[in-house]
């Protein structure tokens, strides 16, 4: 029965690896300027973790095969190199491997979080609330009007709590339910939550960032391909969590300008 277990473990290990090697279930293709760093880090980790996984399972299976139900008279032997050898192996192989991953991974992380947005990045504000995202563009004056939480009213669609009668900067602000951005232009996303914790996850853009109620968080990215993508919420926010999403339309500058004009007219 030990031999059957060995074969089963090896079969499970190989079958588990098949969809990974075949790329059967992949995330949406990357359309950002920084995403390739994350993807490269991902595939490097996949290679190393995959080797560790297969090596571990195969070694386990091999020893089970070899040493289960041996002859009663057989003598106990010790693994060549003994415990110290294995400890050293763990430190050298796995230790250096994961530390290397960690060190190289810093590059991908810092590309997203340690670089400031470009001076000409386009500011867009996103507000998360149960259970929808809403977006705000500053309009011609380039300024966002102040927020008045006590004025928020979804019934009248004052989603951000703006007071255009008293705040001149709010007058030309454009509030939308869909996010549109020009292609190849850096976007500086200003994030805040209206109520509870949410998250801004665009798999195609390789971006994920939580909204922290009471804290303003920002993110910047550049989309490189025209198309329609999905923004979804990954932080459990209540009963409608599964349906909290918005579309992200990446457009040519020209299309974007006319879209924004259209949205301004709808206010």
């Amino acid at each position: 029965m030990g031999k059957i277990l060995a074969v089963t473990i090896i079969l499970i290990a190989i079958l588990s690896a098949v969809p990974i090697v075949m790329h059967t279930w992949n995330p949406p293709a990357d359309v950002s300027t920084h995403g390739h760093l994350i993807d490269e880090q991902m595939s490097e980790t996949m290679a190393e973790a995959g080797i560790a996984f297969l090596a571990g399972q195969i070694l386990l299976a091999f020893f089970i095969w070899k040493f289960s139900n041996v002859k009663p008279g057989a003598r106990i032997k010790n693994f060549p190199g003994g415990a110290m050898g294995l400890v050293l192996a763990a430190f050298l192989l796995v230790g250096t491997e994961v530390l290397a991953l960690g060190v190289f991974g810093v590059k991908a992380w810092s590309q997203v979080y340690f670089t400031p947005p470009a001076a000409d990045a386009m500011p867009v504000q996103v507000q998360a609330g149960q259970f929808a995202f809403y977006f705000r563009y500053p309009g011609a004056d380039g300024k966002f009007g102040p927020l008045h939480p006590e004025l928020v009213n979804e019934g009248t669609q004052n989603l951000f709590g703006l007071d255009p009668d008293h705040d001149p900067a709010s007058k030309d602000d454009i509030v939308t339910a869909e996010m549109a951005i020009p292609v190849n232009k850096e976007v500086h996303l200003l994030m805040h939550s209206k109520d509870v914790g949410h998250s801004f996850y665009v798999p195609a853009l390789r971006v994920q960032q939580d909204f922290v109620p009471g804290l303003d968080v920002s993110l910047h990215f550049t989309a490189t391909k025209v198309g329609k993508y999905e923004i979804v919420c990954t932080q459990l926010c209540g009963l409608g969590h599964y349906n909290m999403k918005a579309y992200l339309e990446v457009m040519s500058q020209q299309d974007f300008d006319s879209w924004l004009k259209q949205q301004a007219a709808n206010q």
Partner: protein
Amino acid sequence: MKTVYKPAAILAVLVVVALGLLSTGRHVSAASEGKVTGSIKLEGTAPHMRAIDMSKDPTCSKQHSTPVHLENVVVGSGGSLANVVVYISQGLPASAAAAVPSKPIEWDQKGCMYQPHVAGMDVGQQLKVINSDPTTHNIHPMPQPGGGNIGWNKSQPQGSPPFTTSWKAEEVAIPVKCNIHPWMHGYMVVVKGPYGVSDESGSFSLDNVPPGSYTLTAWHETYGTQTQKVTVTAGKPATVNFTFKAK
């Protein structure tokens, strides 16, 4: 066996008869009732109603070929104002106030909008909540805390059967929303006794009003309340008109 069934059968018949008597006793006979009719107008320009962007849920936006607008102020031709609830706020005899219409109020979710946007209903009147959409809605009425009504928040998945409920106390008005589709917003106006809700032409009617003098109140979600005195006589409809001023 028979001896067991016989008293049971007699009891059942008695119960049916008693219930029948009780239910007829609750109806005020039609001949002695009065009626209040009238229409509601809005003076001035109605505010601009934003178009609703339903792109978040394609099952919603697919149902509308033209944009849907907010319904906070719905004005018909000639300034007629819809969605105004008119009810008797003073002077109603206890028996008339206690009468509850047997027909349930339907609260439908269709095209990711509430139909109706404003519903009047009697305390204890059956409220039937329907989901006609191919998506899940949650119905979340939010009465004032401590006012006798207890709020609830229930989802109704697509295809699940309607459910009925009712309100325990008068309340003008209980806001209702769907959190999954944040633009869905409406009001339930819970009153005692006869009420009417104005339609697109601004007209409303209160049926089964016993003769007497009353104070009528008209409520609108944006423009608040107005009151007028009215005297109702049997067989002849009394007419009352309200005019709200646009801000």
